[in-house]
């Protein structure tokens, strides 16, 4: 099922992109990677998501925007079943990942999470060395055959997250000695190391300064060549800058979903327009 697009990539870094293009052209419809169908979600008796149906396209950045409490993070965390860690949650409907319903109770969530990586709002490197942070996921998934192989994979992941040059001389220093922005890019590298197909990002830059934020955005732009990325953000400029498609959530409902350019220049729903023009939220 979850095929090997990213596994077959070469270890060489892609071409540097110095400047982001001002406006991204809406691209032609691509393969649907993830499809939510009438997906509803409850925390105990409180319903957090109501019948969400939307498609997430392969090798595309999909942004989910909306005010606090609109259910955007809940939706994101449903894509790798991270919500399972909370007691008393209930789900209905379907989320198809490459045709397989990941909401079904008999899905192997451990394998699912390996394929659907996640980066969190607060940078959360383990209190281990930079090297061990990256190697952790490789070790638990038995992806390291020998020492040289492990070092190679760690280097590859760090290069992929464009942080190798900054950390190559201090791989065995504590990850907690890094700045917040570096820590977050380390967390991205850590997620990439286990070679997921999809990368979920939950407000990845909201705890960071503007320079670190732009580095993260640049990285997201570069990564979408190889990964399907879903990013939750409350920062609309960020959504406009990095994403190809945007979904607007409000009070647990999907109000509008479409190409980012359309959502931001010509929203069809009045509520979307009110939100992006800053009338509320």
């Amino acid at each position: 099922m979850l095929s090997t697009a990213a596994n077959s990539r070469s270890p060489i870094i892609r071409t540097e992109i110095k400047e982001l293009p001002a406006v991204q052209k809406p691209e032609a419809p691509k393969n649907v990677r993830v499809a939510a169908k009438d997906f509803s979600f409850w925390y105990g008796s409180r319903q957090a998501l109501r019948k969400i149906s939307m498609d997430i396209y392969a090798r595309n950045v999909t942004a989910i925007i909306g005010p606090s409490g609109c259910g955007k993070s809940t939706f994101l965390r449903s894509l790798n079943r991270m919500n399972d860690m909370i007691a008393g949650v209930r789900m209905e409907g379907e989320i198809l990942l490459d045709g397989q319903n990941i909401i079904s109770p008999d899905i192997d969530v451990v394998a699912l999470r390996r394929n659907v990586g996640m980066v969190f709002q607060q940078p959360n490197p383990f209190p281990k060395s930079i090297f061990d942070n990256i190697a952790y996921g490789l070790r638990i998934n038995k992806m390291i055959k020998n020492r040289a192989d492990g070092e190679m994979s760690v280097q590859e992941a760090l290069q992929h997250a464009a942080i190798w040059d900054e950390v190559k001389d201090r791989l065995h220093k504590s990850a907690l000695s890094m700045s917040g922005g570096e820590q977050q890019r380390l967390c991205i590298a850590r997620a990439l190391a286990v070679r997921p197909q999809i990368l979920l990002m939950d407000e990845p830059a909201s705890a960071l300064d503007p320079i670190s934020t732009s580095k993260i955005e640049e990285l997201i732009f570069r990564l979408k060549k190889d990964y399907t990325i879903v990013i939750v953000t409350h920062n609309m400029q960020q959504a406009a800058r990095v994403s190809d498609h945007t979904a607007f959530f409000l009070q647990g409902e999907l109000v509008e979903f479409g190409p980012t350019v359309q959502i931001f220049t010509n929203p069809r729903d009045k509520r979307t327009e009110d939100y992006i023009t800053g009338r509320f939220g």
Partner: protein
Amino acid sequence: MGTSTRMAVDRCLRLLTALAAVCIIGILAIILGIICHNGWEKLSWTFLTAAPSEGMTGGGVFPAIFGTAALVFIMTIFVAPAGVFVAIYFSEYADRSSWFYIISRQAVNNLAGVPSIVFGLFGLGFFVQFVGRGVDRAFYSGELHYGQPAIIWAALTMAVLTLPVVIVSVEEALQAVPRGYREASHALGSTKSQAIFRVVLPHAMPGVLTGSILAIGRAAGEVAPILFVGAAYYLPRIPGKFNDQFMHLGYHVFILSTQSPDVDATKPILYSTVFVLLALTFILNALAVFIRARMRMAQRSA
């Protein structure tokens, strides 16, 4: 009430509470002062390394020091893993609304409140008579080897007594591990046990050690539980087997102060023994603080 009256009440209360704190310091100072003053003169290298002699009016306390150390060492081997496992269950696995969790939680709380003499009787009834006799019947055709008071049974009794201490401190340490670490591990495709043993537990290690050392400190000072299960009145040699009896500092203090034929001759030795016991407990507590601080520092920088 006018403002000045209220201010006066305020000052009085402040004074009163400070006075209460002074009392605590005072009591501790008196205890330590008397023990140090009287215990110091008899204290010597010989006292620490020799066995009691001349009907407990001479010699040293080495068998008691060794017995205490051996007791807490064996106890730790049992109590640390058991406590860690219960704490992991409580903190990571248990459904907090399930009846099993509620019952086992109450069991731990009640275990902590059982008077220590009751543990002694439990140890005698369960470990010595039931388990010990059972071992003798099964392996020694009824010959008396383990069905009698012995250091192994004393250590197990102490382990049961100190189990709540370990569980509570390990659980606190587990709860203090940031949720982000668990989430990060799960998001990378780890199983729950991988997350616990590779991320959560290593991070909680200072708490595990603190818990163990607190348990050791508690066990080193407890006398009642071992009265019936292995502590000996007088043994000139040190225990060499698990089913030997042993001397214990706390029990030795009890014996010296109640069973001595010559109270005046025993007194200096009694003070010195108490001094050794106190010093041992303080050293263990200081060690706990030191290890915890070191591990916290190491975690921040590595």
